[in-house]
């Protein structure tokens, strides 16, 4: 999988998502020109990218879909639910192909048949609804012969042996020279053998021999009149080459080949030497799009944008960021002046530069001088442009910043020692001051690096309109989905992990929460139900709520089910408040659905929701009013990179305990501790708390505690279970970057990770959930 393919996969998914979103909006709010145009452009760009990776089935399908959208665009076809369904189905199909392509690098064998069937269905809609379907506004999808735009013979030569030239320059970067040799017609009589001279060129990488003038009929051919042009590209030095042709300087041209011509392939050990050709194909297609540009205004803006985006992306694929930037600048100019000419010119220059005829720098100069007269020349780059960075790179940065925090803690440690050990306050104060400013800087840096990992919740929210639409169709319920606060940001890991729990909650709401339209009418509610997903920030945490206005959950039914499933004894159940009874829904093995449905009855209960949310440091709670609806509330941390821990000593070692598990610390005299069965325990505010010795749990020698000493206990509470850990000492409370256990230790149970201490030691942080019996 090369970089171009990877880029394609990422982008195809984005485009599919975008098109899906827009289609749903079209269905809900009508086929406004802008919306259809957005969908159309997404399909168009998708088709363009499919061409780059050479997937004809995808092209075929998307082409048919494009025609359909064009008909809607032109007002010749209504965006009926059937049409939207089919367009969505088409996106699903394409999405599956993208998955296949990612997994296997190719499409499954049946892709061709699927594509034809899908295209046929799309076309059927077109012919059924609109007799006149030849509506392709200002768009031609044919690809120009890629040679058309390549003026220079050098580029042709380089092109012919691109893979080979690239390989060689990778292994041993060298200057490249192109030679064009046009021998005099009478050269044979001078004893010249032009081919022999070409044979002597060192490190020949490409060669071409052709007729200068078209060949005459064979009968009229003069075998001793040389009518040849010989051209080659060599990695030899200019001196070596000049030396070979020193006797005929008038017949030879030697040209330096700018490395820009090869840059396409730099840094990418690609198998296919035709990446450049593919990029050129994409750009040329954009050129074509622009040439046939419809003059209508919205259309204009849309196409300029789409074409510039496709072209600049293609160039970025080829690591030609400078050219891509020029295209983007030109597109801004084109939009400002409402004239495609600047963009077309930039594309032409890019093509020329791609062909090696013009180094990128020169192209830039040309752009500047040409557009200097227009006011758009000063136009800034479009704002809000984002940079796509590999997640692992960000993670590396997060780790480094984490280490820096640790180092900062070590420095604080040192500053304290200086204060204690060095007499005189001057030095200590200076060290303190430096330490404080480093602490501040490191903190700020860490925070802004963590900020890099923050993504808006819209990343997970955006899949829901489609899901809700499909589910409500299947359930014959009318449901409007309202989303709020999707710009709330949180760490990517958390946002990604939220999808499953939210999906489950939304499914539950639709399947169990919301009544059928008939029932709603009978209950005096509007037939159309509302499911709200809303996110909001609360300090260093955020809250996501899934709210439905359905039938609500009756605590009595929950109690009955719990009894049937023997989750709790009858008297215990009776003692529960309604709120506590509702919380039973999150117990393992509980399901209120009378029957298993194909929407939510997949054997995954609310207990999984709770478990998943707790894994990322969150909490779930539920409130419900019978007849009025249910709200499930997820309370989550914004990021999981920093954890607060308490450092304790036990059995001569130190361990970390996550602070979120600790409720309090108590010091108990032996008389307050009683023996309950085999265990020590004590009573804390009317609850019996079992005592476990941490040293014992860790199989360490217990410290020789005298019978009369007070015992130090850390009281912890994890998922409702309370326990007290007996420790020898409580040291610090720290904010640390927790690293997962690695290597041989990765399977060790009972630890949630390690962190470096200020004095350089490694601290093991305990996973109390696993550790406590």
């Amino acid at each position, binding site marked *: 999988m090369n970089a171009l393919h990877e880029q394609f996969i990422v982008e195809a998914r984005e485009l599919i998502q975008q098109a899906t979103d827009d289609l749903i909006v079209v269905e809900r709010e009508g086929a406004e020109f802008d919306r259809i145009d957005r969908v159309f452009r997404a399909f168009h760009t998708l088709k363009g990218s499919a061409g780059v990776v050479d997937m004809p089935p995808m092209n075929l399908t998307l082409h048919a879909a494009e025609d359909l959208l064009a008909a809607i665009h032109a007002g010749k076809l209504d965006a009926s639910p059937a049409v939207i369904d089919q367009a969505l189905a088409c996106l699903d199909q394409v999405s599956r192909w993208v998955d296949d392509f990612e997994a296997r690098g190719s499409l499954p064998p049946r892709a061709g048949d699927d594509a034809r069937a899908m295209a046929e269905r799309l076309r059927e809609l077109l012919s059924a609804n609109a007799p006149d379907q030849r509506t392709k506004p200002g768009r031609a999808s044919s690809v120009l012969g890629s040679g058309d735009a390549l003026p220079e013979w050098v580029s042709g030569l380089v092109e012919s042996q691109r893979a080979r030239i690239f390989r060689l320059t990778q292994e041993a970067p060298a200057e490249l020279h192109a030679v064009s040799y046009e021998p005099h017609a009478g050269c*044979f009589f001078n004893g010249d053998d032009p081919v022999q001279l070409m044979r002597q060129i060192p490190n020949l990488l490409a060669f*071409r*021999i052709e007729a200068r003038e078209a060949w005459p009929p064979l009968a009229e051919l003069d075998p001793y009149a040389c009518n040849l042009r010989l051209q080659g590209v060599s990695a030899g030095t200019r001196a070596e080459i000049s030396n070979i042709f020193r006797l005929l300087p008038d017949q030879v041209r030697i040209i330096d080949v700018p490395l820009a011509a090869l840059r396409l392939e730099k840094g990418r050990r690609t198998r296919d030497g035709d990446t450049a050709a593919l990029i050129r194909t994409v750009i040329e297609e954009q050129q074509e799009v622009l040439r046939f540009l419809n003059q209508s205004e919205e259309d204009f803006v849309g196409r300029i944008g789409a074409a510039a985006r496709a072209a600049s992306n293609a160039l970025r694929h080829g690591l030609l960021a400078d050219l891509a930037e020029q295209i983007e600048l030109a597109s801004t100019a084109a939009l400002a002046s409402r004239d495609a000419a600047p963009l077309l010119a930039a594309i032409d220059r890019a093509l020329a530069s791609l062909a090696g005829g013009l180094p990128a720098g020169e192209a830039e100069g040309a752009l500047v001088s040409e557009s200097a007269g227009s006011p758009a020349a000063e136009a800034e780059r479009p704002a809000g442009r984002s940079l796509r960075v590999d997640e692992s790179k960000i993670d590396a940065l997060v780790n480094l910043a984490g280490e820096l925090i640790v180092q900062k803690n070590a420095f604080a440690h040192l500053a304290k020692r200086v204060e204690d050990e060095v007499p005189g306050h001057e030095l200590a104060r200076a060290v303190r001051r430096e330490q404080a400013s480093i602490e501040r800087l490191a903190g700020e840096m860490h925070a802004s690096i963590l900020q890099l990992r923050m993504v808006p919740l819209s990343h997970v929210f955006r899949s829901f309109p489609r899901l809700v639409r499909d589910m409500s169709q299947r359930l014959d319920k009318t449901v409007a989905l309202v989303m709020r606060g999707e710009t709330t940001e949180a760490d990517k890991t958390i946002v990604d992990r939220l999808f499953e729990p939210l999906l489950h909650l939304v499914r539950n709401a639709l399947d169990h929460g919301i009544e059928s339209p008939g029932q709603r009418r009978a209950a005096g509610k509007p037939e159309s139900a509302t499911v709200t997903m809303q996110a909001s920030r609360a300090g260093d945490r955020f809250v996501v709520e899934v709210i439905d206005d359905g039938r609500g959950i009756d605590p009595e039914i929950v109690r009955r089910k719990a009894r049937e499933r023997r989750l709790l004894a009858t008297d215990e159940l009776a003692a529960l408040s309604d709120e506590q009874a509702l919380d039973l829904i999150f117990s393992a093995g509980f399901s209120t659905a009378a029957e298993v449905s194909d929407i939510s009855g997949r054997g995954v209960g609310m207990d999984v929701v709770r478990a998943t949310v707790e894994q990322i440091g969150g909490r779930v709670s539920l409130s419900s009013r019978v007849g009025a609806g249910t709200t499930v509330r997820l309370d989550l941390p914004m990021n999981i990179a920093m954890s607060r821990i308490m450092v304790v000593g036990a059995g001569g070692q130190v361990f970390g305990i996550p602070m979120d598990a600790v409720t309090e610390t108590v010091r108990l005299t032996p008389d307050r501790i009683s023996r309950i069965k085999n265990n020590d325990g004590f009573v804390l505010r009317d609850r019996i708390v079992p005592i476990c010795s941490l040293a014992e749990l860790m199989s360490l020698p217990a410290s020789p505690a005298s019978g009369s000493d007070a015992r130090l206990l850390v009281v912890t509470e994890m998922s409702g279970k309370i326990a007290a850990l007996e420790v020898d000492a409580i040291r610090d409370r720290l904010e640390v970057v927790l690293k997962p256990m690695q290597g041989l230790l990765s399977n060790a149970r009972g630890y949630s990770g390690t962190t470096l201490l200020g004095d350089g030691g490694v601290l093991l942080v305990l996973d109390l959930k696993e550790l406590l019996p």
Partner: protein
Amino acid sequence: MSVRRQDDGSVVLDGNCPVEEAEALLQMLQATPAAPLDWTQCSHLHTAVLQVVLAARPALIGPCGDRWIEQWVASNAL
């Protein structure tokens, strides 16, 4: 003679083919434009001879015995 005609009518380039052979080759190809040209045995081709081949474009029996020509000319231009 490095240019000769086989009994089956095909033209053969054999060994070193210097500049003078261009004329002979051209005459043979002019006489029978459809005759195939076997250049597997040719060890070195002069530009003038190559030019005749390029202009006449006979059906070639390859690979060309001159490896440089085979690499750079036969695979691209012909």
